[in-house]
């Protein structure tokens, strides 16, 4: 308990706001970086590059395909060789070895695969967040190399790990923020007001999902879709918080506590959309869980409270006061 008399202590809400919104650096430890890379590689990256690709042409070039030909991925032997290299790079990535080169290879494969896929006449976003995260980590590793020198090419120092995690978080924040900006521009500021029409999108996506496999029911979620249109204020109450949530995601960069809370909030929001629209956001949810919720860190904090001799050290701010 604090020694200060109750009258001189700030009000409870002030202390709570300060606890949640105080700006503190994320002092990520090397072991945390390792656990994050391990989870990211096993849950997300492992599935992000295929051993075989069906596309052999790029009929509607998108992005870098305007300047480069990515159809080499359509050749089965090339694609398979790159896939083998991808798996070797994942091992090096988890170990944190030669990060600028390892991440450079992962970026090359991920961007090539995504660009060729998006050059078929439609644009998909399944792996886009994953690619952006690798790009952010690659930039961070290059920046660290410039600052720490070539001698650190093979083994990254702890501050390089910290920068990789921090830029990853910033990349994800930027992706959600730009999505919110697009909503504001696309709807001319009326997005929150027009959310009752989201019912139409719910019906469309559930019907589309039915035609993918012809399992389930074509009329699934039809009642919910109609209810949102019949009760517009209910729709505004339930759907419209998505916009401010995305727009203010930068708050999650203030400290570890709000990062965890915000990560959980956005995972909840994605889960709600998945249930309503049959749209999967598996990679987004996993990345938010790894880089924002950071469960291993909180587990170690808890363990050290009860067993101070536990070998893994956390951020000094989260050590138990003795």
């Amino acid at each position, binding site marked *: 308990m604090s020694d200060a008399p109750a009258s001189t202590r700030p009000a409870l809400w002030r202390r709570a706001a300060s606890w949640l919104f105080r700006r503190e650096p994320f002092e990520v430890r090397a072991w945390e970086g390792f656990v994050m890379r391990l989870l990211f590689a096993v849950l997300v990256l492992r599935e992000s590059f295929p051993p075989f690709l069906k596309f052999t042409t790029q009929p509607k070039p998108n992005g870098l395909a305007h300047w480069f030909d990515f159809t080499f991925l359509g050749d089965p032997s090339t694609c398979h060789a790159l896939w083998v290299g991808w798996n070797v790079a994942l091992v090096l990535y988890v170990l944190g070895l030669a990060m600028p080169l390892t991440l450079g290879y992962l970026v090359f494969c*991920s961007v090539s695969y995504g660009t060729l896929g998006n050059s078929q006449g439609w644009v998909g976003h399944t792996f886009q967040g994953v690619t952006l995260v690798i790009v952010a980590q690659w930039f961070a590793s290059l920046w660290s190399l410039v600052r720490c020198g070539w001698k650190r090419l093979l083994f990254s120092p702890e501050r390089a790990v910290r920068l990789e995690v921090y830029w990853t978080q*910033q990349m994800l924040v930027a992706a959600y923020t730009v999505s919110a900006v697009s909503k504001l521009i696309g709807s001319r500021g009326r997005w929150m007001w027009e959310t009752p029409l989201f019912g139409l*999108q719910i019906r469309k996506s559930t*019907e589309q999902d039915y035609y*993918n496999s012809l399992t389930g029911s074509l009329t699934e979620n*039809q009642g919910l879709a*109609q209810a949102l249109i019949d009760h517009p204020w209910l729709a505004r109450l339930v759907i419209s918080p998505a916009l401010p949530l995305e727009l203010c995601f930068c708050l999650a960069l203030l400290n570890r506590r709000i990062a965890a809370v915000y990560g959980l909030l956005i995972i909840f929001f994605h889960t709600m959309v998945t249930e309503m629209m049959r749209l999967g956001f598996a990679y987004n949810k996993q990345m938010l869980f790894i880089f924002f919720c950071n469960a291993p860190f909180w587990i170690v904090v808890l363990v050290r409270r009860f067993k101070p001799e536990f070998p893994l050290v956390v951020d000094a701010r989260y050590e138990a006061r003795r």
Partner: protein
Amino acid sequence: MSPALHLARPISRFLRWLPWKFAICVVIAASCIKENYPVSHFPMYDSFERSTFYLYVAGADGSPIALQTLTGTDITEIKMMMTYRFKGEKARQTKAAAEAKKKGEKLRVMKVDEFPLELKQRFGREILDWLVQHHPALPGKCGGALKLMWVDLFVKDDGKLERKVTELTEVRP
């Protein structure tokens, strides 16, 4: 002290203070570059209309086929192919209108809803051809033909959600 130097100091102080520079740069870049892999401005569901459409694939008898189960192609990709073509057509018309304006002529750019059926059918055939090219065995499994079905979804004046299905086009390879 030169005026430039006068300005440089507060700017550099501001830049040093500014948090999350990397995120800010990405937001600005993505808003400008838009949909160019690996960058995106993520425009999905950025606005809501009172009507929308999607497409599904049917066999020779008009009954729907489980597209993703049979081919791995998601049904949303079929709609995105059509939307992409609509955007291309709109861009072509806008360019033609700009050139006509230079010559003193007036050319109206059509809204997507006003595109003629023949144009939609041509795009539909292109999409089915793409499907056949990548999955040559598919028509055989569906009675020798593939049909592209157009589904209109809209909110009626009384607030009820309605759907209307029409056959857009078919291919018999």
